[in-house]
């Protein structure tokens, strides 16, 4: 997956209509891959090959693909625990992503992180974080770091950080502290609320005030905002791209209420009594993947039905291979990994139990 690379050439070019076919077809390919990947994730989870919590991204694919499309490969990204889509769209190989969930040494965190902690250093993905809202001050810090680098250290360039959060995270104080600091210090972090309408079983208006005007939360910190429909990847890009460009240029923060929807339960163990099948079906009718496929095939006309089928087949294949790869990989050994990567500089007597060590190299390095 090289979505990041593909759009690089188009920097500043404007709306999606002006992008090359390759780029917009690449978006579809990413979305298809994420969806197929998540279907496999679900069945692997049901087979108990994946443990712990597991949050499926199906339905929200356009959100991550459309926003990534508008930034550079080396813009830092950080997100919450519903992070498989972000990892894949950022360029993590499905093998490595699946292996992480299988708890294998070939996973992005050598099996030590799990589903909620997708980190990818080469692709500037700073995790996957499990505590609701915890990534939001971190996101400000990544943007701060990038700004400091060119402003104080005189190297690097103007960047933005994309910091994703769920709608439920709006109610964690950390976000508000971070937004105020971003406002005061003019930090180029863009908070993207993947507003899928629910935090677990809580419909947004049961937990969050001003649910239909979330932008008020940004206005309280003088942060510029957009409310964007996340079901059409092209229009999403069209609205988001110019926003990013201005924020990057002027090095200040932004906020996006990105309307989306998750088709699956909150995590794999959710009976979903809080919504009707009809409601889900209603959203599936405007499915972001179908919509973009239809756009490319019927409106833009740059993709044949056969090519689309081929794309789907490819994705299925890739994902199947990912499962095989994960399954075939070794688990991290207790001897090699349990007491490693605790300290970058392990010293004597850090623990009463035994000394720490360095583990095996991360597969992404």
């Amino acid at each position: 997956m090289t979505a990041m690379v593909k759009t690089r050439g188009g920097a500043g070019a404007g709306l999606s209509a002006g992008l090359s076919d390759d780029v917009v077809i690449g978006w579809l390919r990413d979305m298809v891959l994420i969806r197929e990947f998540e279907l496999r994730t679900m069945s692997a989870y049901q087979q108990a090959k994946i443990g712990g919590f597991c949050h499926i991204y199906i339905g929200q694919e356009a959100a991550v693909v459309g926003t990534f499309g508008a930034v550079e490969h080396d813009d830092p990204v950080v997100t919450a625990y519903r992070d498989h889509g972000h990892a894949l769209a950022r360029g993590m190989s499905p093998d490595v992503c699946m292996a992480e969930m299988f708890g294998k040494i070939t996973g992005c965190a050598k099996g030590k992180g799990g589903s909620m902690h997708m980190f990818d250093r080469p692709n500037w993905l700073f995790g996957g974080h499990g505590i609701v809202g915890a990534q939001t001050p971190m996101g400000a810090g990544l943007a701060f770091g990038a700004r400091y680098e060119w402003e104080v250290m005189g190297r690097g360039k103007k960047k933005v950080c994309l910091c994703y959060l769920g709608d439920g995270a709006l109610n964690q104080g950390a976000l508000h502290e971070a937004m105020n600091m971003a406002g005061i210090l003019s930090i180029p972090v863009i908070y993207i609320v993947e507003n899928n309408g629910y935090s677990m079983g809580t419909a947004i208006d049961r937990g969050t005030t001003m649910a239909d005007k979330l932008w008020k939360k940004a206005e309280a910190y003088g942060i510029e905002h957009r409310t964007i429909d996340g079901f059409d990847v092209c229009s999403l890009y069209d609205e988001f791209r110019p926003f990013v460009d201005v924020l990057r240029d002027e090095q200040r923060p932004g906020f996006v209420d990105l309307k989306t929807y998750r088709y699956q339960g909150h995590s794999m163990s959710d009976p979903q009594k809080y919504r009707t099948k009809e409601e889900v079906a209603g959203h599936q009718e405007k499915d972001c993947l179908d919509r973009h496929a239809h756009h490319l095939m019927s409106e833009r006309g740059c993709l044949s039905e056969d090519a689309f089928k081929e794309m789907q087949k490819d994705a299925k294949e890739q994902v199947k291979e990912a499962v095989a790869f994960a399954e075939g990989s070794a688990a991290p050994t207790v001897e090699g990994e349990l007491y490693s990567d605790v300290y970058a500089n392990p010293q004597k007597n850090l623990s009463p139990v035994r000394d720490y060590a360095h583990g095996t190299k991360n597969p992404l390095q």
Partner: protein
Amino acid sequence: MMSTLEMIDQQVHPAVGEWELPAFVEESAMPSREGDRVIQYREALREAMSEEMRRDQRVFLIGEEVAQYNGAYKVSQGMLEEFGEKRIIDSPISESGFAGMCIGAAMYGLRPIVEFMSWSFSLVAADPILNNAPKMLYMSGGQWGCPIVFRGNDGAGGQLGSTHSWCVEALFANVPGLKMAIPSNPYDAKGLLKTAIRDPDPVFFLESERMLGDKAHVPEEEYYVPFGRARVCREGDAVTLVSFGRPVQFCMEAAGQLAGEGIECEVLDMRTIRPLDIDSVIESVRKTGRVVVVDQSWPFAGISSEVITQVCERGFDWLDHQPVRVNAADVPTPYAKELESAYLPNTERIVAAVKKTVG
């Protein structure tokens, strides 16, 4: 001027509204732990809360997904129906906010039960739960206490990874002003939670996701398990195994194995950490001369260090061997299954520790 003659010696402190403790009885007089009213740990918790809510209108339950969703782990299933949305309250994901709010409500005169979906999520609420609740009585010179129960899942074991697997007992038990209970089975879970709700001090109640489905007999009759009394789960004379919460189960397994080799362990389930029934530990150590503390939290300045220190302080001369501790590995909790099970203080490691001690 007040003189020491005017010291209050009544048990009922005026700072916490009306309260009285249930009548506690000796272990031997409690309803039987054996029987066929077999329910899950989560149901035992639910019964405790429901019974106390029926008894006292001031008691309410708040937390994420406790009402309409019936609890993330189904502990509060059906409670919304019985008690209504004014007493079973869904909160936003704002632990600091709702913990702090309930401290205010407790000062006002209510008896909140605050569910943390996991104690791992209580770190964002560390200030209200550590800096306010346990200190209110002292800071206000005895004017307002804080009768509140914080409860939720504690500990690793479900491959939840490093941010979701906290054992907060090692951190939080350091703070004077709070009480802490860690039940290891359904019977104690119910009896201790009922006591916690009745107690006028802030109680940190640590459950375990890994035990919510555990089943055991829980008697029909009402009962309260007193704080500060360990339970001797198994008698023995070779070594004293001290534990609390889920690892008690591993201790029992280990003791079973060791008995096969002729090593008889005495297993103590502390049940509460603060108060800590050190008297029972010492009594046992006088007999065995050896102690192994099994604790699912990290070792450094944790509960096991405290138990060992207290054993040294009160029973040094009875010790025939250095006290030994078995803890979670001293690393962030790993996700991978094999790593996580090596991380936990499992039966194998307990057996090895005992052998080292008696060998």
